[in-house]
């Protein structure tokens, strides 16, 4: 058992989440290998976002186990999950709207920094030093997503596509080992999608593990090694893009609507 959890970073077993009588997730099980790109697809209301919300600790699961690096994190509060190296973005950005682009990215450095209230309030040298480091790291993350020139603008003035990238930069500032992206290509212009694809590939080369929830099928097919398909909270298929594309159930549940 121990060996199994060593090879995979995230192990989900029998995960269920109910909202009243609605089964948002029903006995979902799969593993994400270290350094892999995993995509979670499915029609609207399939439970994809719920899955990310459960893993990141915003919802606690009703049944099932979530093992991250061999440790059970099911039901941990979100800030604890974050401190273990799991970062995420949101479908609807969820940025800190009163802050600038840079401050949004800087707030991603929170879990990796330590200065307390008194040290910060008195501008203690250690806090100032840390603040400088946070600023540099945030600028690096912004440069990676191509937003360093907009760093000092209020985030609310940015168009939707760039706001998504700010969320991406904020997640990168957390220096995660596992990154969950909720519809990263939604609302992005073509050149921005290209940038995101490149960025994800670079990050994975550096050892990051990525889980993507997406509607944009060409985007998913161009990226992922493995795909999990959800429909009405149930996992109906898992495999390579080829396997999934030819799966009878998937065609019926998902692609079939368009044929």
């Amino acid at each position, binding site marked *: 058992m121990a060996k199994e959890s060593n090879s995979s970073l995230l192990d989900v077993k029998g995960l269920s989440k109910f909202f009243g009588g609605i089964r948002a997730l029903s006995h979902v099980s799969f593993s994400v290998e270290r350094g892999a790109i995993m995509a979670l697809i499915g029609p609207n209301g399939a439970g994809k976002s719920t899955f990310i919300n459960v893993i990141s600790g915003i919802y606690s699961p009703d049944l099932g186990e979530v093992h991250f690096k061999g440790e059970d994190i099911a039901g941990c509060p979100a*800030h604890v999950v974050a401190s273990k190296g799991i970062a995420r973005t949101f479908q609807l950005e*969820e940025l*800190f709207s*009163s*802050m600038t682009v840079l401050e949004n990215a*800087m*707030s991603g450095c929170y879990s990796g920094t330590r200065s307390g209230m008194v040290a910060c309030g*008195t501008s203690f040298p250690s806090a100032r030093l840390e*603040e400088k480091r946070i600023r540099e790291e945030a600028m690096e993350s912004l440069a990676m997503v191509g937003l360093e020139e907009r760093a000092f603008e209020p985030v609310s003035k940015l168009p939707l596509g760039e706001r998504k990238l700010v969320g991406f930069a904020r997640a990168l500032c957390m220096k995660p080992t596992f990154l969950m992206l909720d519809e990263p290509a939604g609302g992005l212009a073509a050149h921005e999608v290209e940038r995101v694809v490149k960025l994800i590939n670079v990050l994975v080369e550096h050892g990051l593990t990525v889980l993507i929830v997406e509607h944009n099928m060409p985007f998913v097919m161009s990226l992922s090694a493995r795909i999990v398909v959800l429909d009405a909270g149930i996992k109906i298929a898992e495999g390579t893009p080829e396997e999934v594309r030819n799966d009878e159930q998937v065609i019926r549940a998902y692609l079939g609507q368009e044929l």
Partner: protein
Amino acid sequence: MREKRRLPLSWILIVGGLTLLPLVTSGTYVIGVMCFVAIYATLACGMGLLLGQAGVFSLAHPPFFGLGAYVAGILAARGILTPWAAIIVAALVVAVVAYLIGAPLLRLRGYYLACATFGLLLIVEIALGQLSSITGGHDGLVGIPPLVVFGYTLEGDLHYYLLSWGLCLGCLWFFYNLMNSRVGRAIKALHDSEIAASTVGINVARCKLQVFVLTAIMAGLAGSIYCFYLQFTTPTLYGFSLLVELFTMVVIGGATTLYGPVLGSFVTIWLREAIHMYLKNILPVMTAEVDAVFFGVLIVAILIFTPGGLAGWLGGLAHFGRTLLGKRV
């Protein structure tokens, strides 16, 4: 970078102005009023931080102010501790009380939190009035000795002017540093999106409790200085009317900036002084009612025309000025 260069100038202007004030004014009237401005500004600043930046809708500032005043006053008046030690003990007591009350109450949000903290305000006001064997009841607490610092007795308005503005500017300095740090970003993050805040690793409950206790301590300190300044204190000073006054200051000044509530406190208190001075002759009986009507109308007007308060209006003006200058260059 622009912010960093702009701030020292405004600090120099404010500190310089406050230092010059006692030299250019004669008599104690202006200095005396400015003591009140400083103490109320400290309170309003903490309240503005909670309401405007952290999004914690707490009305518990007057009770913490009152607790600070009464604990320090009682300890000093009964001769249990020297005044300075009493101030420190009062701050600690307020911190503990704020922690114990905040831990359960801060689970509530929005109006529910406002209701619960309003309950605290009423309880503390009534308790201070009824526990007359300890607090002196509605007759007030008397016999508070003057403050003594290293054998030097503080007396008169000028000494308290320096002390209260020292506290106010100290709090402002602390808040300014704080809001430009990781903790400050966490506080602002709470206001914008608690869900996103928790996913970047911010312990939302703990962060709220920390900022709640911090502002309570500052209110408590302001309270103890207030009671030594007046050398007398009564429960009605810390009740509903104080809350209304603080709200007026926060709204008029603007809660989204740190200096807004300070500005609000300055404007509110001096406007009231002006009303009392000039309307006394025209409306000899009705000053309190005139006060209420005047400030009521002012709050409505500010909310309609400049919802960010005076600070928001000044910020807009500064922005306009910068773009004008920028275009010329």
